[in-house]
């Protein structure tokens, strides 16, 4: 079966982010979205450790230990960017001022519940960071993840079995097989990878899906 590559997924997310958007890209896969944002489009990247207008990684040797992102990697600040403290930074998120958050996930439920911080393993040390703030911290929350686990189980589920990060918070899911909106009418398929039918996608996903109304969107 053909699948979207990670770069294709990141490019697909980037396409949905318009000029002028305020965006937080979560750690891991979502970080790749930054590489696909067109340079001529002014987009404001937020990092929850107190940074708005985040630029690309600095050149080697130009790293500044006081200028890092939420993943604790060295970054730069664009002209026009700003620094602020943690309470102000999370107020920005919780207050709904970000247009988009893009997050990784273990599972997303049919109603948009998100599980992405803890596998529930008993001996695992729990660590949440900003995950729960990000989950509720944007007008639109996008999830980027593989459609299935390595063992082939669907990560889109009727009900999350992993501990939740947020309830009914996901708006759109980008996987290596499809782009799916979480809507009041159910999971609506916006796009499917080539050579995969809606019926086959629904079988792999294991929960009911809804066809997009526009015939141009899903094939």
């Amino acid at each position: 079966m053909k699948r979207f590559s990670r770069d294709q997924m990141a490019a697909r997310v980037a396409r949905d982010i318009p000029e002028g958007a305020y965006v937080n890209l979560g750690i891991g896969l979502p970080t790749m979205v930054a590489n696909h944002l067109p340079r001529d489009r002014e987009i404001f990247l937020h990092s929850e450790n107190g940074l708005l207008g985040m630029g690309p990684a600095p050149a080697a040797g130009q790293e500044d230990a006081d200028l890092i992102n939420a993943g604790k990697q060295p970054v730069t600040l664009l002209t026009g960017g700003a620094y602020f403290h943690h309470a102000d930074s999370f107020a920005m998120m919780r207050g709904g001022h970000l247009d988009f958050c893009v997050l990784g996930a273990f599972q997303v439920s049919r109603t948009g519940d998100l599980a992405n911080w803890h596998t529930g393993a008993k001996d695992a040390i729990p660590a949440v960071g900003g995950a729960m703030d990000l989950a509720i911290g944007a007008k639109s929350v996008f999830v980027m993840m593989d459609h299935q686990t390595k063992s082939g189980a669907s990560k889109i589920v009727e009900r999350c079995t992993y501990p939740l990060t947020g309830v009914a918070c996901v708006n759109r899911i980008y996987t290596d097989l499809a782009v799916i909106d979480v809507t009041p009418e159910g999971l609506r398929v916006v796009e499917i990878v080539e050579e995969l039918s809606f019926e086959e996608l629904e079988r792999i996903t294991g929960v009911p899906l809804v066809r997009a109304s526009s015939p141009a969107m899903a094939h």
Partner: protein
Amino acid sequence: MIDKTVSTPAAAVADIPDGATVMIGGFGTAGMPSQLIDALIDQGARDLTIVNNNAGNGEVGLAALLKKKRVRKIICSFPRQTDSYVFDSLYHAGEIELELVPQGNLAERIRAAGAGIGAFFTPTAYGTPLAEGKETRIIDGRGYVLEYPISADFALVKAEKGDRWGNLVYRKTARNFGPIMASAAKCTVVQVREIVELGAIDPEVMVTPGIFVQRVVGVDVADALTQPQAAA
């Protein structure tokens, strides 16, 4: 390219509808966005709910807006001043509704709206008439009142400098309600003395990042200070 600058105060407030909740910055006249208020008066929106620390001075600015009977309700901490006669007469005539909020609760409720806080327990006003009918709670032996956020459709704010991304710095005590009101409104409109190039505001010094600002309009303050308030 993102450019939040707008050419005139009139254009900046053109879409404020009847019935809107509008925050207006300023403490007394410091930080009062006079040109935006005048533009709002000219624009004609009515049935407004206004959030401001005071209820207008003399017959200019907010007082002029009140005098034209555009305001249904005002949420403020200190309506009564030596020169608040416009508000006073409307109030006595029953022509304006007043929600009186202690100044710090007003600030914190506005901040809460901007910060996505659903409600908070504040010690201010506990045991007083301004807490009547409100939920209270004793926490660690101290009395608190539950207060809810105040958000707005529009905020009209005055700042010193702004750039095309909407980044702002203020001047001295004119900062007052500007940064929190900017965070609490769906659409924040700012009049600045000077529109500066992107990068002219040091990122360490920025008080309001552009994420909280939708429109910036340059206003010549020399004009503002000398020109009689047309709408009064």
